């Protein structure tokens, strides 16, 4: 179908090519490490579905020799690598790199909700090109600018991609809040202003507050969420691809291991405090003579049966 459309509207495309010499060519290698959970795998699958210019690869065996990814990318003619590293079967880290010598960003991914489990009614063409919507905060800091550029090249589908479909029917939103990057994907649904469909879904929060502004008096633009949802915390930026000096480190990032350990210790601390308090209380009561024997063991009665008839 796409091919048919291309042939039908080929002349306009050619005209476009004629005016613009430069091309945006991107190919993304998507893969994960071993030990991902089903949810991580589904997220990967969702992203793969949304990115027609990507190539999925088998799980990488190693978590230490990540420089192997550079060769792998070269093998598949990819100039972007999106590598998901799972740790402890629960934490997911994303490495975004531009081999052979671009920077590498390592991010911690949390709050993952895949399309499968979200039950959003939005849908879009497989292989259509998204609009990438960035928060203005991305322009404020150097490391965020780098991250934005990486996102643009990784998630933006180039025009010349092989499996691309000709329309624009979804938007990817990247927003910075709380030092993290929040990612959302929406379908763009246009409706004629007269016929407004009632929102017959649980996502009333998504559709209800949409300000209805007429765009050129033609259409109402509305967004319906598709999924997936996830939040990324940038941790480290390396200068070259999976190697090189660290040029940015997020000092506010606390590793999930640390958080879990703290929680555990806090719990243990609570127990210790309680037992200490109990002991103290007992001693105090003993000193005040409130306990039967002053908190001490009863002294042996010299006249008791056990002593007399021992």
């Amino acid at each position, binding site marked *: 179908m796409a091919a048919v459309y291309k042939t039908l509207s080929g002349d306009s495309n050619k005209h476009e090519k004629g005016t613009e010499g430069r091309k945006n060519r991107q190919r993304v290698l998507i893969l994960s490490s071993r030990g991902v959970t089903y949810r991580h795998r589904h997220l990967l699958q969702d992203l793969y579905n949304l990115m027609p210019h990507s190539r999925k690869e088998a799980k990488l065996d190693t978590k230490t020799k990540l420089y192997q990814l550079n060769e792998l990318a070269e093998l598949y003619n990819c100039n972007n690598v999106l590598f998901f590293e799972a740790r402890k079967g629960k934490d997911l880290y994303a490495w975004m790199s531009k081999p052979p010598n671009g920077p590498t960003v390592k991010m911690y991914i949390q709050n993952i909700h895949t399309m499968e489990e979200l039950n959003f009614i939005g849908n879009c063409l497989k292989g259509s090109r998204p609009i990438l*919507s960035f928060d203005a905060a991305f322009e404020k800091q150097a490391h965020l600018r780098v991250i934005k550029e*990486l996102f643009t090249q990784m998630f933006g589908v180039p*025009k010349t991609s092989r499996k691309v479909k000709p*329309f624009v029917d979804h938007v990817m939103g990247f927003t910075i809040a709380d030092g993290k990057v929040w990612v959302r994907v929406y379908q763009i649904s246009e409706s004629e202003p007269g016929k407004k469909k009632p929102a017959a879904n649980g996502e009333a929060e998504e559709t209800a507050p949409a300000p209805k502004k007429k765009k050129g008096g033609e259409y109402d633009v509305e967004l319906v969420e598709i999924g997936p949802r996830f939040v990324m915390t940038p941790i480290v930026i390396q200068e070259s691809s999976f190697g090189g*000096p660290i040029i940015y480190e997020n000092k506010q990032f606390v590793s999930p291991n640390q958080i879990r350990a703290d929680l555990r210790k806090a719990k243990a601390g609570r127990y210790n405090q309680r037992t200490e308090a109990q002991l103290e209380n007992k001693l105090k009561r003993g000193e005040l003579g409130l306990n039967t024997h002053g908190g001490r063991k009863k002294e042996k009665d010299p006249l008791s049966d056990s002593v007399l008839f021992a």
Partner: protein
Amino acid sequence: MARSKLKSALDQYRGRNIRLEKQRKKEKEARKRKEQRQAANQDGGNEGAQVEEQKKQEEEGEEVAVKANGQTKNKAQAKTNGAAKDAEAVGEPDWETDDSEEELDSEEERTKANLAKLEDSDSEGSSEDDADDDGEEQEGAAEEEEEDIPLSDIESLASADKEDVVPHQRLTINNTTALTAALNRISLPYSKLAFSEHQSITSDEPTEIADVDDDLNRELAFYKQSLAAVKDARAKLKQEGVPFSRPADYFAEMVKSDEHMGKIKQKLIDDAAAKKAAAEARRQRDLKKFGKQVQVAKLQERAKEKRETLEKINILKRKRQGADPTNATEDDDLFDVELDNAAKSDRRRDSSGKQPNFKRQKKDAKYGFGGKKRHAKSNDAFSTSDTRGPKRVKTKAKAQRPGKSRRAKKV
């Protein structure tokens, strides 16, 4: 006792040394800090005024503390000597607990020394630096306390205190030049590219999210950002002549399969059904709750009706006796007639209203109830002259079985 004395003497000897060293160190630090601050603070006159003010406050505080009794001397000491004393306490914990008398003694000595110092500063004003340094020291200590609490120490704190503490932070690496270089290396030549090549839009104003945990407002902010971007991009793409909206007759594979969409639809239907069922159940529960009240109300209504009819009858009875002078008008008369009729019918029903049931009637007819029973079946003049034949009992004709041919036809 002898042992403790020895120990205390030793401690005193050693403690003095340590204290001196520490004080010296602190002074150095304070001086450094002061210099830095002065460099930062360009407004020299203002700064000087501030310092003087600080000093004044300092002195006042000291005076107050010194005036208080022996117990509070300790506190004063703690205040004036600040961090140095803290360090001591941490370093030699048994020093305080074991021989507190000795400590008190030494404390007194120290306070004396301090008093002397104070007097100096009061009278001469030449030892400004000292007091100043003291103040600086205190500030420095406070700052250090605010900043430098390692994570390992936090666990021992109560959870309530934990929130106020800023934990140790890692060394910041933010090599802006390297980042910019990396960016320049990879960035697309946006100025030369058409918008349709990259389709990325950065919002004009940063998305403000007051509370990240407030799901509704957060999602709304995301939505608004994306919507604005879509409108912007739509205009740009239309300008460049790129097809934007998908025509209704363009069918192709979607990101979510039909199966998946069906699942979502089913989920929505199920949700709606569940909601409906819940509402119905609630209604039923309410009915059950109020059912009793409804029944009681109905019974009361019936009783009321009965009472009213009885009253009506009573009125009529009284009227029959002709003792009611109030019914003079025509309307009343007319109305009364009606009432009369109603009452009559009512009475008849009342008197013979309760018909015995059908079975009883039949039995009465057969076996007799009231009246003469004899000769009831014997002929009399009328029956003899009756010319009608005996009554024929009409038996219901059984439907004849149709003939074979017809039966065959039927089937």
